[in-house]
């Protein structure tokens, strides 16, 4: 699985501007009056007035003149007449899941048509296993053929019955030069053990994102976690916490502290620093020297979400033009074929951005975390004790 991912990503990157699939081409041409709110041959339900969409922060393209607006969302509304209620209330997978599991466990909806969760947490698997998500209306998503091969069949949803990828990203280390005294932090060892950074470092609450770079630095393989490799990495984290090195464990909320200068270095996600904090010149982001993990966020339709509307939106974002808008706008990696060509039209510089179009060097340095380890009860308890302590 691991090698396939890397190879597939490599191939995609190498392909550059590649064939745009025919259905995708038609959709991009805005063809078909049946896009706009009527019944299609397949769907017997109409589109809702509003699409309620929960997502992570800094994860969509934004109008540079008005941060509250998103060009891609506006285009969706223009094309389909459906308004989008876009809420950035996902801060970390566990917390968000904890919030929604109450109603979902009782078979009730959560007032959302789309939610986004990461595949390197155990929650996509749980959502599918517990049947808390609706099946996609595939007839409304012909653009599914645009998915790169690597994204066609994830372990938690092999037939893509319930989910469509949103964006992928890489975990790395962000540094605030002013707070770190001018040094860029490039290794987990620095992060965890450099006394100059004591109390000014944050780690992520996501197990996979924090443990992967540490395991890689230890010489272990995060895609095949053993008790030994787990404990070795865990002990390093525990020591750092006990020593007061770690200020706190964060979800996406490290961005505020980083911007403010309260922290010097944070384990962080690739696009956030690139675009979310473009204004602050003192910020740097880099991959840890020994590598880290790569992950994909996926869109799901929670119970009682409007399947036709959500499916329509999923189809919309699988169009390479739109996918390019979103990828370039947010600074993350798209799982759609033909994005690079479209991206270059939007912003020629973007083709050279390794965070959006990772080169071979980066790709060979990232792995996907072992999904079995995510469901290991012992590890889960240990980790939670660490977070809560």
């Amino acid at each position, binding site marked *: 699985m691991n090698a396939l991912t890397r190879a597939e990503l490599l191939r995609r990157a190498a392909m550059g501007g590649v064939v745009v699939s025919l259905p995708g081409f038609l959709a991009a041409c805005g063809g078909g009056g049946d896009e706009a709110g009527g019944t299609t041959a397949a769907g017997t339900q109409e589109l809702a007035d509003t699409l309620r969409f929960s997502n992570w922060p800094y994860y969509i393209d934004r109008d540079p003149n008005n941060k509250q607006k998103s060009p891609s969302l506006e285009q969706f509304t223009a094309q389909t007449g459906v308004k989008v209620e876009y809420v950035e209330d996902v801060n970390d997978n566990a917390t968000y*899941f*904890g919030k929604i599991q109450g109603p979902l466990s009782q078979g009730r909806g959560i007032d959302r048509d789309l939610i986004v969760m990461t595949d390197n947490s155990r929650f996509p698997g749980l959502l599918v296993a517990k049947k808390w998500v609706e099946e996609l209306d595939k007839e409304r998503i012909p653009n599914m053929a645009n998915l790169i091969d690597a994204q066609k069949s994830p372990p938690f949803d092999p037939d893509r019955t319930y989910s469509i990828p949103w964006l992928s990203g890489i975990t790395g280390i962000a540094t605030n030069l*002013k707070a770190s005294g001018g040094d860029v932090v490039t290794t987990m060892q620095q992060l965890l053990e450099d006394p100059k950074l004591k109390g000014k470092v944050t780690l992520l609450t996501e197990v996979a994102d924090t443990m992967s770079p540490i395991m890689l630095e230890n010489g272990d393989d995060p895609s095949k976690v053993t008790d030994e490799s787990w404990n070795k990495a865990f002990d390093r984290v525990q020591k750092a916490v006990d020593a007061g090195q770690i*200020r*706190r464990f964060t979800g996406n909320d490290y961005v505020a502290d980083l911007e403010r*200068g*309260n922290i010097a270095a944070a384990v962080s996600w690739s696009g956030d620093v690139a675009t979310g904090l473009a204004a602050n010149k003192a910020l740097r982001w880099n991959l840890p020297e020994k590598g880290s993990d790569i992950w994909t966020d996926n869109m799901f339709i929670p119970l009682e979400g409007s399947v036709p509307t959500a499916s329509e939106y999923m189809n919309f974002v699988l169009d390479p033009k739109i996918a390019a808008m979103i990828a370039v706008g947010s600074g993350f990696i798209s799982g759609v074929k033909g994005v690079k060509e479209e991206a270059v039209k939007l912003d020629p510089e973007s083709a050279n951005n390794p965070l959006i179009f990772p080169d071979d060097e980066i790709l060979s340095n990232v792995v996907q975390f072992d999904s079995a380890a995510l469901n290991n009860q012992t590890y889960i308890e240990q980790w*939670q004790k660490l*977070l809560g302590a």
Partner: protein
Amino acid sequence: MTFIHRHRWLAPLLLLAPGLAWLAVFFLVPLVFLGYQSLESGSFETGYSFTWEFSNFWDAITGYDEQLIRSFLYAGIATVATLAISYPLVYWIAFHGGRWKNLLLLLIVAPFFVTYLIRTLAWQNILADEGPVVGFLRDIHVLEPDGRLLATTLAVVAGITYNFLPFMALPLYVSLEQIDARLLEAAQDLYASKTKAFLRVTLPLSAPGIVAGTLLTFIPAAGDFINAQLLGTPNQYMIGNVIQSKYLELIDYPAAAALSFVLMALIMVSLLVYARVVGTERLTG
């Protein structure tokens, strides 16, 4: 009308019924359910079942003794701090406030009207590492050049103190305000110095206020988690943080319920001790 006259004993019952019923159903009954849940076992994936799992309590106490002790310690320090800060302030208002007494009191309560979270976030802003306060303290060498105020025990305790100050100040004010100034005059007529008059007359008479304020401050403070979350590190996390995380993130209901019960029980014990010493009427006014 005559029905009520004949059954006078009904009158208080009718008055009490709706309010007490609400409290009984939505305060007492949930506690019973909490107890029930604390004896369950299982996990989120496999479901929960009632198994008289008393070990949950033991696990709660041993696993989180650090946070329990820390919570009571922080709450205790904060309570003493609120007493120290508010006593002179309230004294001044009660005895020297004159016509402006109530308006001044309003100023003490004023922070209450800005959402708790926003108050704490404001402190996060004020005490930021690159902010004016820390900068000033570094300049006058109270803090080391790379010292900080946020993410420390000091910040958390200071936050708790600030947020619960009105709970201490108000009961204190009530009891101080009721002190008849003539008693103090009498004491001074009997050659007591100002200090002695204070120690022998004012302080004892304000004791009920101190007791009430202490309880109203200490108890909620012990269960707080917001200050620790926003102003501290995991090394400052209190039992509230653990309970919150177990309920809403880990979805480990039996452990969370057991922890809540342990916290509740510890507080109840102190409350009963106080009630004994002071008497319920004095306590509840």
